[in-house]
């Protein structure tokens, strides 16, 4: 797997997709993140920004400053050298409230998985998730590493906009949202955390490739943390990795 050369796909004349695979796979994602870190460190003039996803790295560039061949040559020079571990990743403990008023689909998830609601929460909080990518909206996190028992299909039809900062489950993923929007996933809980806030200097505190775990909090704790997060504080804790 690690030896397969990436494919180079043009997304117009100003973006190049370096594709390592077509599936969701931690090893593929590792290669994406390693290339992202190494390529970014080159600080090539004309490279506008890079976007890591599950399986590919999109490189946005100005072709009047750096041409396609030079972008590919830079990627190939990095791929030819053994992958050194990328920037150290952090592990985050994210508070999440599973009380019914914040977890409207918990009962349904329990029915689908034939588990008790307590067991669903225990499994959801027991797992260590990897941040595969952001997408959809600022701070919207795609997390992989959902326990097998909690793999359920998504809704057949999307539901109307959900509240802000809810935690979703479905299709083998769990997700932390920021904005209110319609969704095809199930609402398993709500976090007081803001994965994106303009009130903080670090608008986004979790990096792609970081790991995180949910810590259950009761409704009263949720209310306290929610007020602090709203005021611009990060209420999650960074744990030893």
């Amino acid at each position, binding site marked *: 797997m690690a030896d397969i050369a990436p494919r180079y796909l043009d997304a*117009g*004349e100003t973006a190049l997709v370096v594709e390592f695979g077509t*599936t969701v796979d931690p090893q593929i994602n590792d290669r994406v993140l390693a290339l992202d870190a190494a390529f970014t460190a080159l600080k090539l003039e004309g490279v506008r920004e890079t976007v890591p996803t599950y399986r590919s790295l999109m490189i946005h560039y100005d072709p009047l400053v750096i041409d396609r061949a030079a972008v590919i040559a830079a990627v190939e020079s990095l791929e030819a050298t053994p992958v050194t571990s990328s920037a150290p990743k952090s592990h985050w403990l994210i508070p999440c409230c599973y009380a019914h008023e914040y977890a409207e689909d918990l009962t349904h998830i329990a029915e689908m998985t034939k588990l008790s609601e307590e067991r669903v929460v225990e499994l959801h909080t027991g797992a260590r998730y990897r941040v595969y*990518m952001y*997408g959809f909206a600022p701070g919207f996190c795609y997390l992989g590493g959902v326990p097998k028992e909690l793999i359920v299909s998504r809704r057949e039809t999307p539901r109307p906009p959900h509240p802000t900062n809810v935690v979703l489950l479905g299709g083998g993923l769990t997700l932390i949202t920021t904005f209110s929007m319609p969704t095809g996933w199930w609402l398993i809980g709500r976090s007081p955390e803001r994965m994106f806030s303009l009130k903080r200097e670090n608008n986004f505190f979790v990096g*792609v490739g970081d790991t995180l775990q949910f810590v259950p909090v009761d409704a009263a704790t949720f209310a306290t943390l929610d007020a602090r997060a709203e005021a611009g504080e990060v209420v999650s804790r960074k744990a030893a990795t």
Partner: protein
Amino acid sequence: MRAALRILSAGPGVTTQDRGRNGYLRFGASEAGPMDRLAHRLANRAVGSPMDSPALEVSNGGVEVAVEGAPASVALSGGAFNIALDGRPLPPACVVTLEPGMRLSVRAGATGSWCYVAPAGQIEVAPMLGSISTHTRTALGGIGGRPLMAGDVLPLSGARSGLGGPFEIVSPTLQRYDGGIRVILGPQDDFFAPDQIDAFLHGPWVVSGRSDRMAYQLEGPKLTHCKGFNIVSDGIAMGAIQVPGVGQPVVLMADRQPTGGYPKIATVIGVDLGRLAQMRPGDTLHFEKVSVAQAVEARRQEARLLTEPVVLTPLVRTELSSEFLLGLNLVDGVTAAEHPHS
């Protein structure tokens, strides 16, 4: 007193736009920025501002603006909008100097979807994630991330009014390529058999009414996929053309999400994004396949034209009524150039 732009009335879709956000796609934040970058840049250049300075983007809903506190020149460029200063018609690409009390109106015209109003001076609104570009879906940029409304006041720093005018903007960039919308195939063109690629290029496609700053939806022949229509999400460049299961293409524009999960058959080249953006619901188009090298060459040519001085032609004649012109018998001289005597 400091100059400011006041919005007297605004249809939907009047926003502030600069170069767009940079560096936050990886966190899920959209780029935003102007729908027609060339027109945005030309307007800024015409008033001597850096090319990617903040400007108003006006949709076909139109806008009326005035200055307060001090005079300021503004440039307009974009589609063939109906521009008027205190009721006096002006060409779609022009420079005028607004004195307090004057009313500049920008209304939908014969063609086009977006018009830029660039003041001589800096629009002072607080950047969000490094940009004042408005992305209404995620409430970023401009004033509270929302479209501008009547009563909004945008402070201008370093406002200049020495340009005088009115002038018509004369620029070679206003003559655009008039063939099909040029695309580079990919990144997922391998999800389509060759006959489907041909059908895609040939169209013809009609711009749907369900089109906005996020995406232009196209209606035409139903395209089929040969490998399904779900992919594991990857990055989306501006101009990427997704083909979801229903087989009707969707061109992702300035307010697009940074990533997505449908196969992208092709990507509109940079210099044709503005041309596409200026189309309206009901307009038809087809695509033309070009290489990366051709797209880069077109881009280089546009960048070169944009560095040439913007010529401002004084609009003296528009102050004269047509009756007056007929009386002077100047019209023969004007029309002779357009209709040579046989």
